[in-house]
């Protein structure tokens, strides 16, 4: 099972890098979806089956479909891609890349100096996740619910328009 973990991990890293470097937005999103699926496989191999299923359903299946939906309607290409090439001159990205490289070095140093942690292979049942969500982490679940409610009300407010009738007889109503 460990070999599956490493293969999925490599796929996740490679596809995330591809997602960042693609100039075509839809291709980048496809790589991002592959990266989410690889992360789900990693979770599954580690025994967190429920989290793996949710990763596929929520991230790869719902949120990314919405992203693709929006990108699809924007019809990016041609002029915007040329403009993007003009923005991405080395002068712009070399500073952040250097700082990110320093952070990466620190992170790898910290990880390498940790005592060796073996991947735990205990299987977590969906029931266990549910019980801990509704006892130990109840407050978090409720805060998330309230935030979602606020989001729904906000979306309703933005999308609400008074119904207008275009018909010549019903115009006054």
């Amino acid at each position, binding site marked *: 099972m460990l070999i599956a973990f490493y293969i999925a991990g490599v796929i996740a890293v490679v596809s995330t890098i591809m997602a960042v470097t693609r100039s075509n937005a839809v291709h980048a999103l496809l790589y991002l979806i592959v990266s989410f699926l690889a992360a789900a496989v990693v979770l599954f191999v580690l025994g967190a*089956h*429920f989290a793996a*299923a949710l990763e596929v359903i929520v991230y790869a299946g719902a949120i990314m479909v919405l992203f693709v939906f929006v990108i699809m309607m924007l019809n990016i290409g041609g002029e915007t891609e040329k403009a993007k090439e003009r923005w991405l001159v080395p002068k712009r990205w070399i500073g952040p890349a250097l700082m990110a490289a320093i952070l990466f070095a620190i992170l790898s140093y910290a990880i390498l100096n940790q005592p060796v942690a073996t991947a735990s292979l205990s299987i977590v049942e969906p029931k266990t996740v549910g019980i801990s969500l509704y006892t130990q982490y109840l407050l978090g679940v409720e805060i998330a619910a309230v935030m979602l409610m606020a989001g729904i009300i906000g979306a309703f407010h933005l999308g609400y328009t008074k119904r207008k009738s275009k018909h010549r007889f019903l115009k006054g109503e």
Partner: protein
Amino acid sequence: MSETWTYILVIAGVILAALTIAAGNIFIERRLLSLWQDRLGPNRVGPFGILQVVADVVKIFTKEDWVPRFADRGIFILSPTIVMITTMIVFAIIPLSPGIVVADLNIGLLFFFGFSSLGAYSLVLAGWSSNNKYALLGAMRGASQMLSYEVFMGLSLMGVVMMTGSFSMVDIVEAQKNTWFIVPQFVGFLIFLIAGLAESHRIPFDIPESESELVAGFHSEYSGMKFGMFFVGEYLGITLISALTATLFLGGWNGPAFLPPIAWLLIKVFGMIAFIILLRAALPRPRYDQLLGFGWKILLPLSLLNLLITGAIILST
């Protein structure tokens, strides 16, 4: 060693059976539709016209398979395979007989939700990569339809999960030894059936490809076997929804002992397929906004109410 071989045999059997039933559905649908519409239907090729499917497959394989110059080539070729893979893989969790199942996952139902939501990409990417306005409109409709109906599909099955206490399909079938879940969960059954039809964009809800408005919707630019994969994918979807309904609500392989369990499962699956075909013969296509409004304003509150009542009854007993 022998265990590995039985395993491989079961997997091969499931793949073969699913594909055969999906292809056979085309024939069954045409004959049943013609029966309900007072016509004869295809009856020339082979006994009762049963070889019509073979003739159609030969025809579709030898057709010109053309990728338009303006299409995004890679994604255009990739997207018909997605619908086939995501539908075929879910057959792995359906228990065929006591002890015979490809994968008894403890997240069985969630596995199905995951792959059915990934199936939306097939349609969306096909529409986008075709670079055609009708295809794009079809893809947009398909994406919003599938995204909305996934929500109630998940909620409608939670009643079954609560009564079983597990996501595992094997446990769900075992729990129906005495009463099928269609009796206590009738509302859940109805919502699941409607949502399942919308998920597989099957005829009363085939709005993404409604040919009277959008030429052929998301697969306007497809020809040859790439179109064939969308076509078979739709019939695979029908087979999958029928098999899941039979397993989740009609007791799966449970039945009187004079027939083997697999026969009971097949009878129920074919009964559901015939019912879905009857729906095609009987119902007109709703308008796009009617479909979404019906989903969010009627099915969502209904499935939440069903969840609440089921939970209250389970808690009080």
